[in-house]
């Protein structure tokens, strides 16, 4: 067993785990955080996407021991004070989901994308989500949701800027 200490959704965690335990299984089975789904289990579909130190990763291809000392964010960690995260709100508003299985991964990949590129073009969104598959093929509304989330974030940043300069 290996001892790991890490931060998950802002909370310090400390566990003894088998070195072979995958991060996605640690999150789902040890911590009970079931948002990240195991889809393909081969680094292809992106349903298990979480943020590791703010960057999107596929948690089926990361060992829990590799996350020791780092900061993990799952979809459970996005909403605050009962308010959906802007990306979650945009996915709901624009119906960026059908069966919902890929959604936590799509949302986390989007949060990661917008932190790196807050104002992406439609083509950049499509390319940034190439590692996330939607078996319902509901891509059009997913792209709409991502662009809307970016626009909303830009608008609120703009408003905050106006307020600051006033």
């Amino acid at each position, binding site marked *: 067993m*290996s001892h790991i200490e890490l931060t998950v959704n802002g909370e310090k965690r400390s566990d003894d785990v*088998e*070195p*072979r335990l*995958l991060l996605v299984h640690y999150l789902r089975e040890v911590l009970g955080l079931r948002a990240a789904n195991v889809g393909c*289990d*081969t*680094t*292809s579909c*992106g349903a298990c*996407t979480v943020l*590791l130190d703010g*960057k*999107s*990763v*596929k948690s089926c*291809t*990361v*060992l829990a*021991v*590799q996350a*020791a*000392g780092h900061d993990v964010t799952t979809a459970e960690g996005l909403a605050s004070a009962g308010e959906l995260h802007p990306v979650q709100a945009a996915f709901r508003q624009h119906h960026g989901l059908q069966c919902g299985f890929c959604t936590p991964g799509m949302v986390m*990949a989007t949060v*990661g*994308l917008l932190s790196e590129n807050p104002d992406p073009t439609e083509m950049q969104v499509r*390319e*940034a989500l*190439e*590692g*996330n598959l939607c078996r319902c093929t509901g891509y059009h509304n997913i792209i709409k949701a991502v662009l809307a989330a970016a626009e909303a974030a830009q608008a609120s940043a703009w408003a905050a800027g106006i307020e600051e300069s006033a």
Partner: protein
Amino acid sequence: MIPAQFEYVAADSAEHAISLLVSHGDDAKLLAGGHSLLPMMKLRLAAPELLIDIGGLTELAGVATDGDELVIGATTRHADLAASELVRAEAPLLAYAAAQVGDPQIRHRGTIGGSLSHADPAADLPMALVALGGSVTLQGPGGTRTVPADDFFLGYFETVVQPDEVLVAVRVPRRPGVPWGYQKFVRRANDWAIVGVAAIDGRIALANMGPTPLRAIAAEQALAAGASVADAAEHAADETSPGEDMHADREYRRHLARVLTRRALEHQTG
């Protein structure tokens, strides 16, 4: 899918990793980003008894200049390589190749040292290293040695790295402003190349046209002798031995190599 059981040690230096390799030999494997090794372990194609994690060694990450070369730490991740202003200015072909690997999540984890050590002939970075005429630095118990890209790859998933050596750095010539071309033919987003071509300054490298990344020597020689791009590209598949799979048979890969080489030479940027 769950990997077989193994022991795990986070190395605190390259020397620590080497000493563990010396004492465990073939039973140990280095882990950095884990995006080649972990999928193989999950499929039980690999079952090392000890994983030595060098992914956290900041001393092995980052990009610097050394005379007329760029030195890239082995644990530099694809996303950081692709975004590096230094790499984009001095070796834009390499930055571009890093941005073609997998998808954003994979590029956040995978490392250049891992990709080169894994030595998949269909991969982007091995082909880019061969095109650039770069080299790799290997550190073992007896010191370091530098191996040119043309001598590094031995066969499918096989390199000259010895069981007690760590690939610590990658060196590529600084080529600011030198035109380069890059073509990768895939049927799906984020796939491996069915065939890939990287060209810069008279050197042409091919991905997935044999058991290692290959130089298109006959096409290079034709270019050097003054042949037109179209005529030189006709020789791109000479002396190659591509495999066959569900995506492409041998003849189709040869056809692709010729077409993509012509495109890589015609559409150069830099």
